[in-house]
């Protein structure tokens, strides 16, 4: 293709030259026409120079690019790296937008649309620069050949266009790969990807109803949310046994996660295990709810006095509780596959009797401390079978543990939005304004070079007119 274009350019140059001589020889006393003669001779010669020097021009601009230090592979890596960062921030903005929308019930998340739009525009600008780079890198020889061909058309019919195309190819091939150096020298500081902590891969919201094995709510428990073997959020349960992981600040993972219940110094796994938000949430009145059950715990004896069994799924048949003059008697009929039974009491409580199948037991007492409250538990080892546990004790005043809330979404939404706004502004300046400014500089340089190559008016040549 390039060879054919150059052959055509050469023949056009020859045609231009001889047309010039023809006009030069015309026996008419009209200077306006005769002036074209020497000009066409000159144009033909210049076009021939361009055709014969084509290989030299191509080699020269490649050489200039190497001297300038612009590498195409570094150029693409730089842009692709920036596109990755932009995509991360788009994901972050979408997450925050989803959180806000869920929180408000209507499109408050639309507040973030300008950010998303700006990030999209930044990505479009960088994509355009990549496309421009690909076109120039792969087609610059052909573009030069087309430029020379246009340049050689007689009577300067497309000389300006040819000069512009040649200048564009030279300037952009040499200088476009230098854009990263230009941007990095002017941008204040590098923009990092949002951290893994900032960039939650989606968020879900729910109120978690925590029940024991007999469907009693568990108030004052700490609900731990475990994602990928690490605790990512903590929510305390209210006096109704409800942990609020709702919008806008709290949240839960949108991917499957596990729930652990921390209560009176003991740790329990809750079902469903794992929790799959898409399946296990129920939607009630605009709020997602999740029922988390702790099958190995009974909360019959009052707050912070759980009765637990290490058998993960004991079968509780019947429970009974009586309160007479401050003396509480509890009886539980249950089946187990064997394990450790823990009876927990608080500091100050007085255990009157503990019987299993009407046989009094004097179990080992171990103290515990948990979030500012103290107590003790009695541990009994059981074989598989059915048992009736009867417990009589006096309950002291119930203290209040220091429960904490550690939301899944880091910080408040406001902090996230401020941080996002700051990052988006810097992205727009560094990766939109600066590249566009650089492209403008290249366009102006192209214009100047095109003007030098052929945009001027008539050029004087050393032949008599």
């Amino acid at each position: 293709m390039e060879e054919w274009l150059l052959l055509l350019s050469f023949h056009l140059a020859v045609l231009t030259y001889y047309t010039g001589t023809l006009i030069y020889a015309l026996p008419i006393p009209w200077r306006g026409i005769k002036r074209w003669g020497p000009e066409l001779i000159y144009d033909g010669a210049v076009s021939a120079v361009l055709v014969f020097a084509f290989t030299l021009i191509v080699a020269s601009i490649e050489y200039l690019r190497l001297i300038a230090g612009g590498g195409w592979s570094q150029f693409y890596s730089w842009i692709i790296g920036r596109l990755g960062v932009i995509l991360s921030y788009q994901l972050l903005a979408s997450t925050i937008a989803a959180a806000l929308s869920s929180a408000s019930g209507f499109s408050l998340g639309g507040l973030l649309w300008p950010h998303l739009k700006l990030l999209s525009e930044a990505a479009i600008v960088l994509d355009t620069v990549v496309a421009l780079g690909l076109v120039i890198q792969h087609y610059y020889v052909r573009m030069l050949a087309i430029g020379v061909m246009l340049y050689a058309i007689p009577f300067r019919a497309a000389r300006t266009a040819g000069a512009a195309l040649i200048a564009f190819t030279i300037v952009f091939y040499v200088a476009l790969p230098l854009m990263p150096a230009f941007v990095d020298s002017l941008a204040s500081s590098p923009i990092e990807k949002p951290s893994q902590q900032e960039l939650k891969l989606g968020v879900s919201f729910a109120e978690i109803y925590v029940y024991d094995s007999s469907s009693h709510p568990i108030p004052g428990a700490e609900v731990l949310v475990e994602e990928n073997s690490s605790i990512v959020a903590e929510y305390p349960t209210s006096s109704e046994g409800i942990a609020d992981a709702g919008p806008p600040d709290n949240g839960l993972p949108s991917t499957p996660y596990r729930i652990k219940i921390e209560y009176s110094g003991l740790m329990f796994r809750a079902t469903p295990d794992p929790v799959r938000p898409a399946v296990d949430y129920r939607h009630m009145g605009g709020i997602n709810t999740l029922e988390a059950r702790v099958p190995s715990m009974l909360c019959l004896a009052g707050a912070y006095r759980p009765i637990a069994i290490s058998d993960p799924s004991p079968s509780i048949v019947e429970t009974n509780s009586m309160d007479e003059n401050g003396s509480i008697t509890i009886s539980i009929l249950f089946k187990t596959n064997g394990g450790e039974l823990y009876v927990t009491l608080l500091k100050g409580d007085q255990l009157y009797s503990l019987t299993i199948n009407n046989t009094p037991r004097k179990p080992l007492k171990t103290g515990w401390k948990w979030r500012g409250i103290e107590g003790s538990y009695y541990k009994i080892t059981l074989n598989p079978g059915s048992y009736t546990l009867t417990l009589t004790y006096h309950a002291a005043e119930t203290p209040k543990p220091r429960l904490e809330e550690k939301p899944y979404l880091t910080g408040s939404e406001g902090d996230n939005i401020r941080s996002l706004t700051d990052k988006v502004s810097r992205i727009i300046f560094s990766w939109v304004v600066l590249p566009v400014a650089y492209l403008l500089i290249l366009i102006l340089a192209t214009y100047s070079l095109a003007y030098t190559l052929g945009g001027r008016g008539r050029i004087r040549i050393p032949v008599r007119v």
Partner: protein
Amino acid sequence: MDVVSFVQQLTVKIITIAWAVFLLAWSAGWLLKGTPIPFPRIKRTGQDFIEDAVWAAFWLAMGGTVFALIAYFTSNVSLPMPQPPNP
């Protein structure tokens, strides 16, 4: 017939016409210059025709040489370049 052969044929025709025009201009120039009339401007025009015709014939005849020289010089200039400096 592709564009290249069309341009080639056109060039040949232009060259033929140019030589014919040269002869015409040269003759017309001498005719005007030699006319026995007392109008110096017309005689000057005849002189211009002759000069232009001679210059045109010169460039017409030199066409092949001009392109050969261009090809020669440009191919001599395009020598291998030194390695760019490493930063």
